[in-house]
């Protein structure tokens, strides 16, 4: 057991897989010699050499295209996009090429690749370096989407992503990089599509992801003080989605609140709400409530950004409103 930051857990997860499988390689902007602009890949080039951990030009289409081609020809590559906002400059490769090629070729092409990217707000970076874009990826058939909330899960889900035979996007949350946790020694490997119940409760289910998980946990603690028992589910993976855990919980508590960093329209909470409404409507004791950022770009000013991203107070208020 060793205390590990979320940022160090990223390097540990990658190292675990590179140690195990010589076909795992990683490329990206400043990931090698510099150890990543967020220091999430520190030490990997020194440990695994310049052929396996390689710096690229500022060329997101080349990065994503190169890992696609490499995956077609025997490697298990990891490509880093420095900020998830940069998905927009290589969305053709990600959404048109990587996501669709297995299907369009009738299963001839396998793409065992991972795109890692720093996602999410709370860092005062403004509208082009703060977005939570996991819902973009979720909307494209052919992409798997994970977003860990703890250092331990970073290691386990990274390993699962690298070992998965299909393309996986790992959204690493910038706001969580400094978070610390005791992480067990030895190999950690999770399965994609398994949610965890972080806080047990009986009155309401709060579904959250990545940096919204600690917000939901804190909200549950405050609610407990006022006599409301909230269950917090960390979804961990949007595709595949663990609807079984979610539906079991909501059918027991009778209430659902989702907490998303996505802007309101078509955030992942809407999909979850529709699954619950379609399948266990009659188990509900109140309306499903979504806590999201407003439908606006994220502002840079601290006071404005804090207003935009769901806070503990807003989650508490939403839960009380659902009763």
């Amino acid at each position, binding site marked *: 057991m060793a205390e590990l930051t979320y940022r160090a857990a990223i390097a540990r997860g990658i190292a675990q897989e590179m140690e195990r499988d010589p076909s795992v390689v990683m490329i990206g902007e400043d990931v090698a010699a510099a150890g990543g602009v967020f220091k999430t890949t520190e030490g990997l080039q020194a440990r695994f050499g310049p052929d396996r951990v390689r710096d690229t030009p500022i060329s997101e*289409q080349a990065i994503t*295209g*190169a890992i696609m081609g490499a995956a077609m*020809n025997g490697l298990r590559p990891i490509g880093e996009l420095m900020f998830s906002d940069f998905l927009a400059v290589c969305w*053709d490769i990600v959404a048109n090429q990587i996501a669709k090629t297995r299907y369009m*070729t009738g299963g001839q092409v396998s793409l065992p690749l991972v795109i890692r990217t720093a996602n999410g707000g709370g860092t005062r970076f403004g509208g082009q370096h703060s977005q939570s874009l996991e819902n973009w990826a979720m909307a494209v058939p052919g992409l798997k989407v994970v977003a860990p909330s703890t250092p331990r899960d970073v290691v386990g889900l990274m390993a699962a992503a690298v070992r998965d035979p299909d393309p996986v996007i790992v959204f690493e949350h910038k706001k969580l990089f400094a978070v610390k946790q005791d992480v067990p020694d030895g190999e950690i490997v999770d399965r994609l599509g398994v949610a965890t119940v972080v806080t047990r409760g009986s009155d309401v289910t709060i579904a959250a992801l990545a940096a919204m998980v600690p917000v939901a946990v804190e909200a549950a603690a405050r609610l407990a003080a006022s006599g409301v028992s909230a269950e917090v589910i960390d979804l961990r993976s949007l595709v595949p989605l663990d609807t079984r855990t979610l539906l079991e919980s909501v059918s027991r508590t009778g209430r659902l609140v989702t907490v998303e960093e996505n802007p309101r329209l078509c955030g992942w909470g809407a999909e979850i709400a529709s699954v619950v409404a379609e399948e266990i409507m009659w188990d509900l004791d109140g309306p499903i409530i979504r806590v999201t950022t407003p439908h606006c770009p994220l502002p840079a000013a601290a006071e404005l950004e804090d207003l935009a991203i769901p806070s503990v107070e807003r989650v508490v208020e939403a839960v009380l409103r659902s009763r």
Partner: protein
Amino acid sequence: MYRDMVRARYFEQRVYDLFMEGIVKGTTHLGLGQEAVAAGFAAAMHPTDMTFCTYRGHNHTLLRGAPMAALLGEMAGRNNGICGGKGGSMHVTDVSKGAMGSYAIVGAHLPVAAGAAWAAQFRGTGQVSVCFFGDGTTNIGAFHEALNLAAVWKLPVVFVCENNLYMEYTPISAVIAVEHPAANRASAYGLEPLVVDGNDADAVHAMALDRIERARRGEGPSLVEAMTYRHKGHSRADPGMYRPQEEVDAWMAYDPITIYRARLTAEGTDEGALAAIEADADAEVDDATEQVRNAPPPDPATLITDMWADGGSAWRN
């Protein structure tokens, strides 16, 4: 190479006819007139080398060895299609023959070809990627990102610009600031400016052998510009009326198959041997057509297969 060019020509003429008949659906982008580029390169490649091409990729895929009936079936949306009818004309692929896909978004496959070459370099397999694209591709960002990465990493990839003088309906000369869309950009990536007569199969083949073997020796990428011309419009929707008649006439007279046949005859190849090649190609096309006419549509169950490696498309438990 004569056999290859004739097979490609007869095949695509049949694709055109079957489109008019309503058998081939959607759209098609024919490479009629550009067969020498596909034939010259295919003849220079090893079986394990990798071809990446565009939506104008029937010739390249066929000449790497994809079965003709399965290609035609794909365009007709039949269950014998090489991609099970899920790709269509613009996505014909035969990985078993090194035909690593036809990509329908302009420029997208250049970085992919570079990536496959990177894996070949990393694994020491000796494979080379050959990536075909049109003149219009030279104006899109992915072209430049891929060329730069390939040059910096010295990747074993040959980029082949088939300059047929038109980007879709617009003359390429109207949208570039230089004379040669590829060759004049090569110096930006430290590469030689290479222009070849794309209607002369021998010239293409010599260039292809030289650049592919250079890549295989670890001497890095090349960018080749092959001058050619399409006999038809950009796609099925386009009669190509924007092209001056004198230009069309001149290029039709400089047809790659006609000039190659004349050369073979002048060099003493027996007329009977050439006629036999043509008869064989005719029979092959007829046989493929017959197979496609008799093939049923895809099984409805395949709508949701092959999205994931487990064969399915589940997104939840």
